[in-house]
């Protein structure tokens, strides 16, 4: 992954006219996808994520705003008409796209489906065949080249869809709910394939999904969409570090009720360097407190632990200011959970200097 942005949108807006009413599907979206990352866009249906991904290769023409992919500003080469000009078509042929319903031609064999983008690129027959078989091998379907899509399972069809999307040697792969029509196990195998392709080919992947699991499984970065706007975006670690991040809470949900009234429940978020040290047991030893873990959602990414943990400390909040201060000092983010509303951890942060003072006082 590099810092080089491979997809950038600025102020992307799409307004549909339906009858005499205007429906705003996208409302000033600024997206920044870095080269080589897997970027997930999540949101409920109707949030505009499908419109967003279709704007990235201009299948949908934005009402205003710009789209830049691999250094080429698509919105400026698109022309004004609805028809895609030669330059836009050439740009599109290097942006792969996979679809929820696969969109394979039932009239063609698997191999011929993969060859279609190569036919558009006017690659000669022998080279087309070589490349298609190579791609089918890459997605694990070398033996199905002569089969028709109707003879394949859903997962196999999506593998063909992925092979086809890779035929134009794209830098970017757009995935429009690619796993939403698949069962959990097949979803996992397709996500693993996408992850492998991302690593082997350095392929940047933008995927939209309504499943948090998909984001959790393969995404380096994520954006949350609501009502046509991106309300949060960043790397998973950045999101975790953002106080009150809805995505972080959804990605690493913690639950659990306190065992008695006079307990303090805090949500500890791990991101960055502290997560490699046994902070919780350090806390227990240093302050001689009994800590119970009520719930935790942790993952180890690149040797670092990231995630959230809900712990319970004996005594009321006032009595636990010092241990909480200790956790903050370790670089962890600590939110005191609203006991009544466990799902929505409130963002009751006491100012750090105050905690510092109280800690000094304890010494």
């Amino acid at each position: 992954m590099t810092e080089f942005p491979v997809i950038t949108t600025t102020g992307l807006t799409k307004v549909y006219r339906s009858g005499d009413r205007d429906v705003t599907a996208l409302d000033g979206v600024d997206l920044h996808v870095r080269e080589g990352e897997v970027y997930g866009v999540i949101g409920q249906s109707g949030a505009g994520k499908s419109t967003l991904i279709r704007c990235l290769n201009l299948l949908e023409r934005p009402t205003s705003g710009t789209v830049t992919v691999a250094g080429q500003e698509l919105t400026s080469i698109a022309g004004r008409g609805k028809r895609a000009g030669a330059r836009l078509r050439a740009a599109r042929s290097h942006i792969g796209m996979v679809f929820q319903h696969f969109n394979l031609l039932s009239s063609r064999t698997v191999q011929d489906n993969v060859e279609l983008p190569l036919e558009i690129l006017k690659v000669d027959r022998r080279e087309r065949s070589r490349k298609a078989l190579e791609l089918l091998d890459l997605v694990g379907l070398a033996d199905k080249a002569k089969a028709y899509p109707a003879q394949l399972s859903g997962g196999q069809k999506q593998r063909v869809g992925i092979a086809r999307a890779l035929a134009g040697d794209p830098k970017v792969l757009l995935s429009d709910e690619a796993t939403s029509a698949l069962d959990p196990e097949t979803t996992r195998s397709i996500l693993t394939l996408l992850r492998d392709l991302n690593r082997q080919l350095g392929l940047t992947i933008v995927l939209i999904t309504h499943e948090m699991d998909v984001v959790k499984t393969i995404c380096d970065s994520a954006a949350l969409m609501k009502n046509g706007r991106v309300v949060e975006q960043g790397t998973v670690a950045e999101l975790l570090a953002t106080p009150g991040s809805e995505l972080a809470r959804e990605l690493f949900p913690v639950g659990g009720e306190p065992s008695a009234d006079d307990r303090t429940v805090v949500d500890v978020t791990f991101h960055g360097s502290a997560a490699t040290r046994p902070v919780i047991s350090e806390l227990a030893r240093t302050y001689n407190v009994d800590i119970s873990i009520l719930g935790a959602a942790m993952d180890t990414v690149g040797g670092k632990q990231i995630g959230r943990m809900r712990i319970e400390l004996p005594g009321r909040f006032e009595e636990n200011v010092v241990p909480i201060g200790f956790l903050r000092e370790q670089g962890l983010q600590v939110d005191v959970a609203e006991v009544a509303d466990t799902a929505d951890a409130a963002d009751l942060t006491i100012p750090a200097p105050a905690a510092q003072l109280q800690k000094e006082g304890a010494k």
Partner: protein
Amino acid sequence: MQPLLYDNTLDTLFMVWWSTFYAVLFGVPAGVLLHLTARGAILQNVVVNKVLGAIVNVGRSFPFLILIVVLIPFTRLLVGVSIGPTGAVVPLAIAAIPFFARLVEAALREVDHGLVEAAQAMGGGTWTIVFKVLLPQALPALVAAVTTTVIQLIGYSAIAGAVGGGGLGNLAYTYGYQQYETSLMITTVVELILLVTVVQLLGDLVVRRLARRGTRPSSVVRVGLRRARTEEPAAVTEAA
């Protein structure tokens, strides 16, 4: 009597063959254009769509008998004669082109728009979409449309025959009806029924072959009806 039946059968086949040929030749482009220029389609063009649609509608609303009469000068200009099998081909084709164009349009409309989008996402232009996506994907429906058109033309050719176009219709009318040769009339009608049946069966066979591409591996073709029936839903979901 036998040579009479033979000659007129050939006349009918001549009329149906050539009018079908022209119906496909002009109907496919017209149908494709109707589809592509429709609202929301890739070449959306209200003017072209409306004008072409109006021409097609006018063509289709003419009673065939009137069409023959109206077209007499045009037919004479085009092929030199206005009667006989050659003269009948012109009004038959003119009647069949808009009919077939609408069937083509309907067939193309059934092609999943997702496939068109996939082709666009690959960088495909209009040519790719028409010749590599729309027409191949609609092929079973197009064959069914040709079948329907041929049968329609067999019926029309009998009308054309009755007004001097020759063929089986002429035979049934002039000999069978006007000269009270009931047996000849019945023979002719039976022959028309057979003709229509054979065309329909052949068309259905080809459609089934095309639609089943891939849903049945060639090695299990011999498996009986029960197997075929269990495979039917798979084919249906695929089409959907």
